[in-house]
């Protein structure tokens, strides 16, 4: 690809980012508020439990990314029935970036004008991918910043290691197969990369189905992971992001009768990154040929 096409892609990304900066700010504020509440919740639990060591950044990160136990039993005869406890905080933090994908894909005449101004469908699409990646990283950066501030206020350490007392403190699993110390580095990377894969997948789908349908599909995929255990569902990968701490203390029966402990964060990174690459390049097949029909076809 020539330098000019890359230059145009970067210019497109800048225009897309600038045009959606207010929505980006609103989503980041939303993420900050919710992760702030979840961090505060952990801080209060720590205080009430009288834990000796202050919570570190890894603890706050896990508290923000704490969904339900992972993996959740699947199949007609689960090994152990547990009540469904929908993690609204986690769900909101994970779903907010899907709103960013809607603002990047936008469906109005502005997109037509941008496309013609760019003069290259390659650059136009790659500009959108760059904008999407930037927005996603800014969002997760804001969530991480919130965890860092909470850590600083709690006088904890700014490391990504979760404390040994954490599994007993969060209301998910009272026991864990994993042993301290819990290094959350791979978990953090997995959460960000999986979120990016969801957003890029949604952006790609919106080129075919429109932004509304793509948004609903993304929401359904993430929410579905609360009910069905499958590494195909990105929500389960997001939950695997903190399975370093919460690997359930009992075997879970899968569809094929195997007993599995859960998804390893490190192993899940590869398919998540591959999905990002796929969703960045595959839509070119559509974008290079699609018609931009606007609102009417008179």
């Amino acid at each position, binding site marked *: 690809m020539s330098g000019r096409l890359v230059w*145009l892609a970067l*210019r*497109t990304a*800048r*225009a897309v980012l*600038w*045009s959606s900066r*207010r929505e980006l700010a609103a989503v980041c504020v939303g993420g900050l508020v919710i992760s702030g509440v979840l961090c505060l919740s952990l801080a209060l639990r720590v205080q009430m439990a009288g834990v000796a060591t202050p919570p570190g950044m890894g603890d706050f990160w896990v508290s923000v990314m704490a969904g339900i136990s992972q993996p959740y039993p699947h199949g007609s005869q689960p090994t152990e029935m547990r009540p469904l406890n929908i993690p609204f905080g986690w769900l909101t933090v994970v779903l907010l970036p899907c709103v960013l994908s809607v603002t990047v894909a936008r469906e*109005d*005449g*502005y*997109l*037509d*004008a*941008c*496309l*013609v*101004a*760019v*003069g*290259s*469908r390659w650059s136009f699409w790659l500009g959108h991918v760059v904008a999407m990646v930037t927005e996603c990283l800014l969002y997760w950066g804001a969530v991480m910043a919130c965890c860092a501030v909470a850590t600083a206020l709690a006088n904890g350490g700014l490391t990504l290691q979760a404390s040994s007392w954490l599994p007993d403190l969060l209301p998910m699993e009272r026991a864990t197969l994993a042993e301290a110390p819990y290094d959350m580095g791979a978990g953090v990377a997995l959460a960000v990369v999986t979120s990016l894969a969801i957003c890029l997948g949604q952006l790609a789908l919106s080129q075919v189905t429109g932004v509304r349908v793509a948004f609903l599909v993304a929401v359904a995929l993430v929410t579905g992971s609360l009910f069905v255990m499958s590494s195909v569902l990105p929500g389960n990968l997001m939950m695997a992001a903190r399975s370093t701490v919460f690997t359930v203390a009992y075997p879970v029966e899968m569809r094929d009768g195997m007993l599995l402990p859960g998804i390893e964060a490190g192993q899940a990174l590869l398919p998540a990154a591959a999905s990002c690459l796929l969703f960045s390049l595959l839509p070119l097949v559509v974008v290079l*040929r699609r*018609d*931009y*029909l*606007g*609102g*009417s*076809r*008179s």
Partner: protein
Amino acid sequence: MSYVEVRDICKKIGPEQVLDSVSFSVDSGEVACLEGENGSGKTMAMRVVCGLVRPDSGTVEVSGKRLWGEVSFPPSVGLLIETPALLDGYNALDNLSLLASIRGVASKDDLRRTIERVGLGPAGKKPVRKFSLGMRQRLGIAMAIMEAPELLVLDEPTNALDEDGAALLVRIIGEERERGAALLVSSHDASFIDAVATRVYHMAFGKVRNAEERGGRHE
């Protein structure tokens, strides 16, 4: 050779033949008008010329280069197709700046002059969401002409304009034509077409029925 050469383009969307062997041309310094009822294929023809829609058959050449072959889009084009493409939360200058930043051809002063030229002036400082329909249309016209393109594609540009706005538009089209731009304009307003057109293509049911040379008064 004309600046824009459209030859025998056809486009089917679903079961509907939207364009059926449409041919026309636009020279530099000329205002070619597509005239016809709603649904006659004017907007689709303009989308094809802009590179937004790929015809099923036929060719489009702009400035001697074939679209969907040598180039993807016309090299220098300003467009207003259907409703103006605006970001409601931003003022007129921000809207123009954002689009102009992609090519980097027009300076801030150029953009300010363009806003004055379409008669928005101080009113352009408020967010576009507070604009009337006529003001939005004026800003859409500004967006099309801001980079002094070689080709201007204006779809129903008189929509929502008052009498003064329509007169201003006729003057702007005349100025752009004198600058040497090729203009492709669609309208169903006969008096507007009389005022600006140097050539008129009458369209109906996705076909060009006939072509007619005109003078173009530019009041």
